[in-house]
């Protein structure tokens, strides 16, 4: 049985369980997942133990998360463009420091919601 835990205020970590023997619960779960994606939640699906991928979409008809299945890649040195001059103007928050841009060639992979453990994280306000 799959589940979706939602990081939330107040109640702490709340969990929705998907039991396919209960059609009403499955319909409700599908509606919640679709609504979360519409509201900009990051749905992080556990693809292997401890390994997660972000769902880019959800197929409501078949109840499957659609994740980007990236090609395996080697560790590469990150691109660092820190500015060192005094009084230099900082750039906007799309800063110049980032892990090296990957060639984001991705196939789509589907994971049934009943088989997946997922964590939902609400949109970020920054900080």
């Amino acid at each position, binding site marked *: 049985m799959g589940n979706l*835990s*939602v*990081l*939330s*205020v*107040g*109640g*702490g*970590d*709340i969990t929705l369980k998907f039991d396919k023997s209960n059609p009403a619960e499955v319909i409700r779960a599908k509606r*919640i997942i679709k*609504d*979360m994606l519409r*509201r*900009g*939640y*990051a749905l*992080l*699906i556990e693809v292997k133990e*401890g*390994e*997660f*991928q*972000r769902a880019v979409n959800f197929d409501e008809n078949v109840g499957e998360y659609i994740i980007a299945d990236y090609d395996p*890649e080697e*560790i*590469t*040195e*990150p691109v*660092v463009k*820190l500015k060192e001059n*005094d*009084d*230099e*103007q*900082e750039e906007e*928050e*799309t*800063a110049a*420091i*980032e*892990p*090296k*841009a*990957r060639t*984001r060639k991705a196939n789509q992979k589907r994971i049934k919601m009943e088989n997946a453990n997922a*964590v*939902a*994280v*609400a*949109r*970020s*306000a*920054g*900080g």
Partner: protein
Amino acid sequence: MQSQEVLEDNYSSTRQIMRALGIKAEEWCGLPVPIADEKLIVEPSHPASSVYAKIGREDPPEDKTIINTWYSYRHRSDIVIYRDKEGKLRWGLVPGIHSLRAAFSTMGCSIAWTVEEEERALLKLSTLIPDHLFKMYLLSGMFIETSKRSGLTYIFRKLRPTVALTTDKTGEVKILCALCLHPIGYYEGTWAGSMCPTDDVIAHLLMMRADEHFYWKRANQIRAHRPEAGL
């Protein structure tokens, strides 16, 4: 062990009301708890963000228009160019947040959370990281993990931004920046988010593991020398 009554405070009714409102409004992640004298910044696309903007500390009315702002290493402050109400261009220094003040405010924000929700978050975190790292987190409030994708090392910290580190060819470790991210909202001028501290740490960890590029895009990247980085 203290009883539930002892652990409750004056804010328990506010938290309960916000929890009930969150369920009623079908806000799956709940509604942040407003705190008197703290400005709660809620993610702008949240339906209640404009309501939250009117609650808490009031900023004095602006009688100047900001033209440009940048950070000065020499002055350790932001330099601001602004136009005053007479239309004259002026400049001034705005010092960064003071770590001590931010620490005091962060302590005050703990009334927004409950011990129970932090306990649940700790249980969740214990299933996500190895035992020795969980012990490290319990005892020091931080743990370390290296990304399999980029090779960058991250120090995930309770109530402080995550530190991103890299190692150059000579083996020297460098701080890239501190990554600040709070799901739904945060209290301005503090390191506190609307969720309990360990839920914020879980959000950082899982976003890094699931989609590092997305994590960097969503987080505010704070340079290590700035006080907001908490270093």
